[in-house]
């Protein structure tokens, strides 16, 4: 019995991931005005609206179980957007999330969250491709590897790194903390709690930074003293992960 609980606690299923994103969606909708206020201070004041539009679409999409087939990225646009009743595996699910957020959110955040989930989907697909059961759950170590690939995709798309006052300042420490915790043999609860705390700390650290990327960089040193809206929505993503996976 104890062993069972342990196994369940250290594996990630497609439905856990759905739950994660639904919790995230709810949190974004609650915090829409707050995110918009943060973006109004140093950007164009649309981050809350953009994210809200995206997660509303995500809720419809996840609810309706319309899952875009996990075809290769360069198969052409029709293939990339065409919904199909594919069997849901984790790779396909993450790809659907990516495509929904790209045009649902739009703007910089749509491209960046989209690249995150697209690369995560690719990593998941390659993990699942070689096994006997492509519908299988993945371990939290594999999940952490999936998120790491997502982060690499995001950084490439944004041509950005740490300390530039962007969502990366929440993403990267969170994924580092998750991986460290798992490597030390800690369980999912400890790992996702550590990730969430690191995301929060990273988000808070953006207050002292000068923006070097995105709309806020136009403000130069006047961007210092304000929390980055993208890092804030990313904190909610890891807060939702703690709720869904821990």
């Amino acid at each position, binding site marked *: 019995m104890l062993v069972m609980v342990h196994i369940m606690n250290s594996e990630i299923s497609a439905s856990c991931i759905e739950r994660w994103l639904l919790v995230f969606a709810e949190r974004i909708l609650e915090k829409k005005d707050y995110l918009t206020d943060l973006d109004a201070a140093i950007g164009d004041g649309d981050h809350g609206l953009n994210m809200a539009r995206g997660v509303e679409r995500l809720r419809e999409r996840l609810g309706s179980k319309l899952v875009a087939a996990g075809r290769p*990225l*360069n198969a052409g646009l029709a293939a990339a957007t065409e919904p199909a009743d594919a069997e849901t595996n984790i790779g396909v699910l993450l790809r659907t999330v990516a495509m929904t957020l790209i*045009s649902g959110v*739009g703007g910089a955040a*749509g491209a960046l969250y*989209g*690249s995150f989930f697209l690369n995560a989907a690719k990593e998941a697909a390659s993990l699942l491709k070689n096994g006997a059961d492509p519908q299988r759950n993945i371990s939290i170590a594999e999940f952490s590897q999936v998120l790491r690939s997502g982060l690499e995709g995001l950084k490439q*798309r944004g041509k950005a790194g740490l300390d530039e006052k962007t969502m990366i300042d929440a993403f990267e420490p969170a994924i580092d903390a998750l991986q460290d915790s798992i490597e030390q043999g800690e369980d999912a609860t400890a790992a996702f709690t550590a990730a969430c705390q690191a995301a929060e700390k990273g988000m808070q650290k953006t207050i002292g930074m000068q923006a070097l990327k995105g709309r806020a960089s136009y403000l130069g040193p006047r961007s210092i003293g304000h929390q980055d809206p993208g890092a804030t929505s990313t904190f909610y993503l890891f807060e939702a992960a703690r709720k869904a996976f821990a």
Partner: protein
Amino acid sequence: MVNLVIVSHSRRLAEGVKELATQMIFGAPDITTDATDANTDNTVQIVVAAGIPDEECDNATPYRLGSDALYIAQTIEQVWTQDGVLVLVDLGSAVLNTEMALDFLPPEMAGRCQISNAPLVEGAITAALEASLGHDLDTVNQAAESAAHIQKVSL
């Protein structure tokens, strides 16, 4: 003939740029406003992929301010020919999303597209003229990019 795609956060801005650029087309200007009714082979097509399609927004048009990679990719696909497409962008995520759009296109198509580093207005005007003269993609983009150095105010 090289076709042009105008990517901007704002539809009104993009349509204004298109209007100005269309005047520069050598020969008969094609005043199509939409990619869908642009089909001729012997005149430059200029189309806009501007704003984020959003049926629920409160604007006069079903687009909110911003940029959308999938919409940009679809627009490029509609006017793409072997001669290639030059994409002119305003700023910020217009660039990010155009780069992402090229990743969504088949490589042989993306390989015949360029994102111009040109300033939007001067670049579009120059590119429209150069493209209508039948120049190739590299030449059209080089001319558009060099428009950045035109001195507006004499010192």
